């Protein structure tokens, strides 16, 4: 595969770079009528450039809320969140949209591609909102699709692609604006085990090329592919540990039996 043509490749491999994300004492409440749901109770976390971390936890542990806040889809009730040296807590909705557009790449469990829209057009979408000139948009989208190994399927519609391929289109879409961090919410939740490992292979490769990745998962064997695992429980981080010997997805794949995609 091709190398990532992006700025954060500068900090490639350096675990000791400047923190790309710094979260301090973040709380999040939801008021549901009479009752107050305390989703996050003081979370602090630093993510450095080039990290690949997996966030684990049961449902209701606060990991999704944390993900939404890091992804600038939601704002903390209190606390500090600095993304790439920008204090995100005080930004307007428009500014948050711009941050999501340029600094964050989202990958979802359900792929979330626009149906009846080709792979290329799906990947182009963020460049459209970034007001990138028309000539560059397609070029960048094609590059991103080649990066995830779908250079030959750019004019396919999501319905013509397998789950793994759809997820790769989603990854290409997340990468097209050269974000500071890739956020993946249960990226393998809808995939079979072999395809899941394939996706992890892509993540590992992108990470090796310098991309910072934060992934929410509840599968331990998937979390293993990350370099750092964080465990959420009851709205707090309970454990934060480095993975000693991450398996190489490429190696694991060789040992797995090939199953038909359908």
């Amino acid at each position, binding site marked *: 595969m091709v190398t990532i043509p992006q700025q954060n490749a500068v900090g490639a491999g350096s675990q000791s770079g400047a923190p790309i994300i710094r979260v301090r004492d973040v709380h999040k409440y939801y008021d549901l009528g009479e009752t107050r749901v305390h989703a996050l109770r003081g979370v602090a976390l630093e993510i450095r450039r080039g990290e690949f971390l997996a966030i684990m936890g049961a449902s209701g542990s606060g990991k999704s809320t944390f993900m939404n806040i890091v992804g600038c889809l939601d704002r903390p009730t209190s606390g500090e969140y600095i993304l790439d040296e920008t204090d995100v807590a005080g930004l307007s909705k428009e500014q948050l*949209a711009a941050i*999501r557009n340029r600094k964050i790449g989202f990958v979802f469990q359900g792929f*979330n591609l626009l149906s009846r829209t080709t792979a290329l057009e799906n990947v182009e979408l963020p460049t459209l909102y970034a007001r990138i000139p*028309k000539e560059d948009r397609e070029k960048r989208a094609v590059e991103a699709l080649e990066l995830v190994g779908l250079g030959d399927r750019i004019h396919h519609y999501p319905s013509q692609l397998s789950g793994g391929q759809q997820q790769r289109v989603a990854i290409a879409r997340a990468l097209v604006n050269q974000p500071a961090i890739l956020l993946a919410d249960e990226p393998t939740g809808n995939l079979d085990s072999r395809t899941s490992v394939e996706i992890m292979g892509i993540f590992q490769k992108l990470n090796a090329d310098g991309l910072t990745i934060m992934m929410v998962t509840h599968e331990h064997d998937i979390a293993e592919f990350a370099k750092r695992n964080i465990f959420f429980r009851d709205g707090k981080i309970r454990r934060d540990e480095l993975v000693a010997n991450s398996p190489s997805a490429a190696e694991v794949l060789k040992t797995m039996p090939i199953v038909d995609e359908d």
Partner: protein
Amino acid sequence: MDFAAILRIAMRALARNKLRSILTSLGIIIGVGAVIAMVGVGQGARQQIQDQISAMGSNILFVGSGSVNRGGTRTGWGNTKTLVQADLQAILRECPAVKAAAPGSNTSAQVVFQNNNWSTRVTGTTPEYFDIRVWPVQQGTIFKEADVESTENVAVIGETVRKNLFGDANPIGQTIRMSVRTSGTSTSSSTSTSSPGSTTQTTTPSTAQPFRVVGVLASKGYSAGGMGGDQDDYIFIPITTLQKKITGDTWLQFIQVSAVSREASFAAQEQIEALLRERHRIRPGQDDDFMVRNLADFAELQDQQAKVLTYLLGFVASISLIVGGIGIMNIMLVSVTERTREIGIRMAIGATEADVQRQFLIEAIVLSGIGGAVGIVLGIITSYVITNVFGWAVLIPPEAIVIAVGFSVAVGVFFGYYPARKAARLDPIEALRYE
């Protein structure tokens, strides 16, 4: 985001539900089509009225023998017998704003030429009448002042009369026979006895009299509403001939007057009114036994009526445009709900509220804009159909098209705004979770 891209996205979204989009546009198509066609009909009527009025001349006044008010019941004009030839002379003599005046009386008659016969109106007048009304002959001549003095049986006929009596034959010099309908009250036998000295000349009203056709008038077509229908369905003969040989009356039903200029027509009106009140000995506070109509007033009134008609038609038609707009709003609301997830995705990858709002607004505007464009074509076609089938004049003013397009886009904006706002206000997290 560049406009071409937004437009492409909107077109694609609309193409996804083709039937739905077409049906939604149909509301606007019908609305705009109706507005254009109706305004076209209204404006056409207005134009026609204006043409006719300017053809008649704008300095014309019409003095009619008046209505009588008896215990609150008023009769129509032409029911008093106080307007006479002497009044006409006095008007010419004493009203400086008056340029010319011609007397007139009407009656109905049956005319026959060879095997053809035709029922029409006969007006007795003088040659000045045709000058005042700026009405030339297309063939032959107008009868002369000498004909009036010697009560000649000569006639100038209108185009409709010519067509019905002569067809392709040359009417000039031909003799037609004219018999007055006996139903007319003003031609009752008592009249002939009340006009002494003329009994020898007065033939029995129902007897046909020969008239030599000396001229055919140029066609004037239908007059503006309320002015007597087909203006070409008339025969003009000397006033003296009508009075002495046909009706036996001496009074005038009307005097056609021209003022020295258009501006002078109002002065002429006042002068004539004052003069006739004096001559007819009408005391202050008493109703006139005549009426003076100023064509400038009349033109204004007619134009006003046509304008009201146009507005009314346009207003009724624009109701359907509003209904069409509601249809757009309805569909856009459905669309926003259906595409909640898409909205969530777009927001997650960086679409701002403004982007989302713009997208849905453009969709609504494309719907209404396409509807508007098709509606204009439909409206123009409808107008031509109306013109050809019903024979009405239709005039589509260019600004009506501009207004219709503007209005349909405005409908799109107005009825698209709320759904678009609703889409933009969605919480991206909720929207992404929407199934």
